[in-house]
């Protein structure tokens, strides 16, 4: 008898996994990542507050005071706004990595209105012009790559990425134009700023919360129930089929990216008009990228994304507190923990999509009668691949 060497690990695609099981795996991944962070940080910190102190600081940083809660919600809804803007494009498998630039363009357009028109025109007129110009500027920044994608199949991820930097230098151009002797920073403007509602931290937080709660619900309905949403999903699934259904794919790509960019511009409008009342080259706060993570972790569903956005901001606000409490000096620690969470979350997806068989443990399968008709159901090539094929031709 020869000793038979079987392959040690054998992977097959899962057909289906119950919702709760998938949820459990994801929650477990996040918990493992958090526990790992807690252990590492409490071990390495100059002023360690211990393993449980980590979680205490985390919660106190996010929810400790009324101000913190408002700040948490403000950031949550701003990030959600960006993520929702990006989802519109992602549903179509259009990789809009240009969120940062589109937000900045929205900020810049609002700032230009405030700088040149603030105090000269009645405030409501300025507000309206700010809103419109922000939407247009954000939309413009997204539609340029979209046009080239639609007509020449130009790689959109790299195009939008480059647009980020052009937007950044445009902002720095205007700042140095306005304040030639300054340090490159811009003081907050008062003329033309949106009115405060309520007091304290709430006054700045309330507008983003309301605006982006509404935007999220509207986009949710748009994607799910509207004809446009159907067309977007169809193009994302199979461009050939969309063409066959008589959809003008170019038109939909352009239309959708105008929407995506304009929504990013709207975030810029709120950032400059209400939250910060000025513009800086880093005002996007990297939300264009974080928004991608939120969209992806939220399975491109605006309602789940709301939860993810809350969680990410909870971590960021909480980590800020951890950093102070534990005696760190660099705020970048928060990025590390968030990055770690991303890694675990991304990795756990594998165990939801695939089944791993180890040598020795025989997984007996009982054929279920669910789908059976003489023929093995071939998993269709994922639409992503189709996109790649198109890119070649």
């Amino acid at each position, binding site marked *: 008898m*020869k000793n*038979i*060497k*079987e*392959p040690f690990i*054998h992977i097959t695609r899962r*057909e289906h996994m119950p919702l709760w099981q998938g949820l459990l795996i994801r929650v477990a991944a996040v918990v493992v990542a958090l526990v790992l962070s807690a252990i590492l940080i409490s071990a390495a910190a100059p002023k360690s507050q211990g393993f449980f102190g980590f979680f205490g600081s985390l919660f106190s940083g996010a929810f400790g005071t009324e101000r913190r809660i408002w700040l948490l919600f403000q950031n949550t809804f701003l990030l959600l706004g960006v993520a929702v803007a990006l989802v519109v494009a992602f549903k179509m498998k259009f990789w809009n990595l240009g969120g940062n630039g589109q937000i900045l363009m929205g900020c810049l357009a609002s700032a230009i209105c405030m700088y040149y028109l603030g105090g000269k025109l009645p405030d409501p007129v300025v507000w309206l012009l700010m809103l419109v110009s922000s939407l247009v500027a954000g939309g413009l920044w997204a539609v340029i790559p979209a046009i080239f994608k639609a007509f020449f199949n130009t790689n959109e991820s790299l195009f939008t990425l480059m647009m980020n930097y052009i937007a950044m230098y445009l902002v720095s151009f205007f700042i140095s134009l306005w304040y030639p002797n300054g340090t490159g920073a811009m003081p907050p403007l008062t003329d033309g700023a949106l009115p405060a509602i309520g007091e304290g931290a709430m006054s700045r937080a309330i507008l983003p919360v309301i605006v982006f709660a509404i935007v999220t619900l509207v986009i949710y309905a748009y994607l799910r*129930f*509207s*004809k*446009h*949403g*159907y067309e977007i*999903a*169809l193009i994302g*699934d*199979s461009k*050939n*089929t*969309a*063409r*066959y*259904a*008589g959809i*003008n794919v170019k038109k939909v790509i352009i239309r959708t990216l105008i929407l995506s960019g304009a929504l990013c511009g709207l975030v810029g409008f709120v950032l400059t008009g209400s939250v910060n009342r000025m513009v800086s080259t880093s005002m996007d706060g990297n939300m264009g990228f974080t928004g991608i993570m939120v969209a992806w972790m939220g399975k491109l569903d605006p309602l789940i994304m709301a939860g993810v956005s809350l969680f990410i901001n909870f971590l960021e606000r909480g980590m800020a507190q951890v950093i102070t409490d534990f005696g760190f000096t660099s705020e970048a620690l928060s990025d590390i923990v968030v990055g770690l969470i991303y890694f675990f979350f991304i990795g756990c997806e594998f165990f939801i999509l695939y089944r791993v068989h180890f040598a020795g443990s025989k997984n007996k*399968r*009982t*054929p*279920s*009668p*669910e*789908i*059976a*008709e*003489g*023929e*093995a*159901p*071939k*998993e*269709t*090539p994922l*639409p992503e691949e*189709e996109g790649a094929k198109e890119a070649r*031709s």
Partner: protein
Amino acid sequence: MDETAALELKHISKYFGSVAANKDIDLTLKRGEILALLGENGSGKTTLMNMISGIYYPDEGRIFVNGEEAVISSPQDAFRYRIGMVHQHFKLIDIFTAAQNIVLGAGGKRGISHINEEVKEIAEKYGFEIDPKKKIYDMSVSEKQTVEIVKVLYRGADILILDEPTAVLTPQETEKLFAVMRAMKADGKSIIIITHKLNEVMAISDRVAVLRKGEYIGCVDTAGTDPAALTEMMVGEKVTLNIARPKPHLERPLLEIRDLTINNDEGSRAIENLSFFIRGGEILGVAGIAGCGQRELCETIAGLRKAESGGIYHEGESILGLSPRAITARGVAMSFIPEDRLGMGLAPSMSVTDNMMLKNYQDHGYGLKEEPVSEDDPPEVAKKKAARNKFISFLNRHCPFVDRKKARAEAEHIIEELDIVTPSTETPVRRLSGGNVQKVLLGREILTEPNVLITAYPVRGLDINSSYLIYDILNRQKEAGTGILFIGEDLDVMLALCDKIMVLCHGKMMGVVHADKTTKEQLGLMMAGALDLEEEKGKPMGVAKDSRIGEDQA
């Protein structure tokens, strides 16, 4: 002990999800023989061979090579056992040269600079014609196949598996291939050829093994059997194709194609100067080997591809250049089953419901009903009602939402009507089996009540029962007066089902024949380009005497 088999499979099973693609299969390949592996589409031939070549790993069972148990968990393992497979879809790198493809992954003795000479040596030894420096994307199908076979030989394979090698070849090219196979056999190689063409089985093989629905049926000596017996093994029971062909009641041409020329994606001619017409209430078959322009023709009629020149007329009016939506609105429907089944016509990740509304979602309204205006209404009431109705229809036309309720009802309707097996209307179509996917596609097209139906390969990969159901559906449409363009693969089916058959060869029309007045041999000759009826008769066959073109056209 030279009597040991080159390859022996014992109790091999493989499951995809819950479906068994191979169930408890035994197979023996002797040294120096050509074994034909016969079976219908979807009978598990390719899956079985993929397990021998290391692409899949069997769930159960054992494999023996030269009498010793072998574990083949990767293509490397397969090559170690000197097993090589030529896949149906060539596994070649397009931007590489022939030589680069051939030496790819092989342990070659000499450096990369010598590959061209090495390849030439092998080609000469076996009598292949091959240009080692030619890039794959510049090659014809048969050239690519040659590269694939040389590749396997280069790596010293003793057991060759050829997966449907003749499907893409002309008869002449097939003969050449068979000659090479015989030469390889004489050289002591063992060969498995997968096919579902009986005449080829009889011509080339020593023994035949038959699979049916993933199960092993038996193995017989070719010399001691005949096509009828093999067919019986393959399909289970003797099937005389008994497809009903209701008599067409002739109408004036519905769809007329005139001097149509189309280019393919690579920019070369796919269809050249083609003229034909379809009447209402008839089925016109299109026969031709794969890649002779059928796909491009379908796409052009449906408005998805640009024509270089010529015209397409529907009820006498040109529809060339109209948008796909406008063409659909005129009643021209297309169901095209591409090789990968889901590439066109269906959105694989979407549910059956969502796929139902693919073509009519634009017309979805709020479902507001217009009030009927009766003659008894006093004039002012009638006027009010008319205005109201106008408003309602305006609202419905500009409704921004899709009507999933309506689509779900349609989905339920066709699921019942066509006996589609699916867990629910909300199941993504990619989780359905091939036959059900095809029914969904065809069902949706029929739902639009077309007057011209273009259907390509509607029974591809279907079992006999499902196929007959599809023929029934088509015949019902025909009787309802629809003109049907049927692009098929199986000549027997086309002879039984179609009223007339048009044969294409490399994009050129070879002639149109009446299905009840022709023979398979004649069609075969035409498909291979050996018989051109158009030339013989000296007049264009694709122009109707009672053409409608010209009535309102110049």
